[in-house]
């Protein structure tokens, strides 16, 4: 048998400016691992007031206490710190574009020791944990060149295994219509959603094929929990699904309760006339999603974390 060639990593040689960005990203990843974004924190507070039974209250009390402890003790609030993903819109003139992949990979590597994050990169087929929390394709970087500006906008996302499991995509025949989309989403809620740490943020993608629909569904999770689709019919479906899934009554942790979701977000793009691609992704109550923007001088903003400085 041939010996397995182990994954190795050597810290890259970065330009001084790239090092600066790497350090800022390392700090931000560490913060995302322990502090929920403002929209999620607010939503959980609202939902906790709606649930009145002792069991549900006990769960919400535990969540609140946990987030306080995570902040005080400076530890990741959930042990499953995910396989890091970055969804990026980058101006074509952003000065560090050529070093971006190296910056992000090294930031994850550094944050893994700093936070510390769990080692979540298992090399497939060879089936061993790299022990570094990076591996082939981890972190995943999805890059869109937005315009000709010098700015960059980065969503940081750590999804644990639990809320990654409900992810699914399917291509429907147009005859199945949006009714088929609804069925697909609702079925996934009672089968897998229940174990994905509700209240959930549900992302629904509608497009042509599995990868476009699935990708849209992930982008939907980058939107804030109370955001509304700019498309009137998609917004209507968001509202209908939110009410519908809430009425299933999953409750926190699937123990039953009045609410099941923090929100439902739909992201849609055009479709081939012969297909409707539908994708679903779910975020758990501990939805560790962040957003950071930089300009060319690396001045940053953190629109989802008021008052936080790196």
């Amino acid at each position, binding site marked *: 048998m041939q010996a397995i060639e182990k994954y190795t990593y050597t810290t890259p040689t970065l330009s001084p400016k790239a090092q600066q960005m790497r350090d800022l990203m390392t700090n931000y990843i560490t913060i995302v691992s*322990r502090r929920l974004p403002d929209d999620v924190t607010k939503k959980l507070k609202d939902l906790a007031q709606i649930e009145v039974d*002792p*069991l549900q209250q*006990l*769960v919400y009390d*535990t*969540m609140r*206490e*946990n987030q306080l*402890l995570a902040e005080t*003790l400076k*530890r*990741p*609030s*959930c*042990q*499953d*710190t995910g396989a890091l993903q970055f969804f990026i819109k980058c101006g074509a003139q952003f000065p560090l574009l050529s070093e971006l992949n190296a910056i992000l990979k090294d930031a994850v590597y550094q944050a893994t020791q700093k936070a*510390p*994050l*769990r*080692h979540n990169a*298992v090399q497939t087929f060879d089936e061993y*944990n790299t*022990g570094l929390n990076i591996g082939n394709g981890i972190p995943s970087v999805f890059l869109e060149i937005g315009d000709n500006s010098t700015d960059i906008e980065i969503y940081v996302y750590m999804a*644990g*295994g*639990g809320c990654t*499991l409900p992810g699914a995509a399917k291509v429907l025949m*147009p005859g199945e*219509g*949006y*009714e088929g*989309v*609804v069925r697909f989403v*609702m*079925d996934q*809620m*009672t089968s897998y959603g*229940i*174990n994905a*740490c509700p209240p959930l943020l549900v992302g629904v993608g509608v497009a042509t094929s599995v990868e476009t629909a699935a990708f849209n569904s992930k982008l939907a999770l980058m939107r804030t929990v109370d955001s509304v689709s700019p498309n009137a*019919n998609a917004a*209507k*479906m968001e509202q*209908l*699904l939110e*009410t*519908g899934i809430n*009425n*299933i*009554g*999953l409750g*926190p*942790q*699937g*123990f*039953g309760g009045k609410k099941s979701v923090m929100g439902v977000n739909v992201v849609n793009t055009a479709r081939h006339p012969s297909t409707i691609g539908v994708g679903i992704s779910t975020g*758990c*109550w501990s939805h560790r999603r962040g957003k950071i923007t930089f300009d060319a001088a690396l001045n940053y903003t953190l629109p989802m974390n008021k008052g936080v400085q790196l």
Partner: protein
Amino acid sequence: MRTFHLTTPISDADLEEIRIGDIIYLNGTMVTCRDVAHRRLVEEKMPLPVDVRNKAILHAGPIVKDLGNDHYEMVSVGPTTSMRMEKFEEEFVKQTGVKLIIGKGGMGPGTQRACEKYKALQLVYPAGNAVYAATKVQKIVDAQWRDLGMPETLWVCKIADFGPLVVAIDTTGANLFEQNKIEFNRRKEAEIQKINAQVRFIK
């Protein structure tokens, strides 16, 4: 919803009165044990290197800080999806004599049979609350199967007041999540009908 405080080693009598929906806080020994450890015991026939008889396992892959000289600190520990272990759990309980299976979400008929036959409970810790849980781990006293990496290692933990643990399967074989699921599915069909009357966008 009644509250119980249990300490390992746990006897059959300790669990007799406890029913689904009750809450438990646990003291004593709890060992993290998940996918590959279950597979090794059941499929690979490798004996578990830690004795969990009359104790508790936690389906979890924690973040642990290595302090050197075989000393470790529990940084963040919370349950993982227990359903992944369903395939192995009946045989696991039979072979190991474990009394409490702690994890996240429901488990299925195999675990129900095991809980009834071997007098065990399946419990759910509210997932995602991993720092809270870590503060209830007083000490990591042993680590086995280190070759599996941080998440899959068997971390033997001394715990105090570990909880709240919600009873999901009791020793009569009653299953909280399966009961809920029947109701959830019934409601779902009614909701789909309501929604689908309003999403006929293709005309």
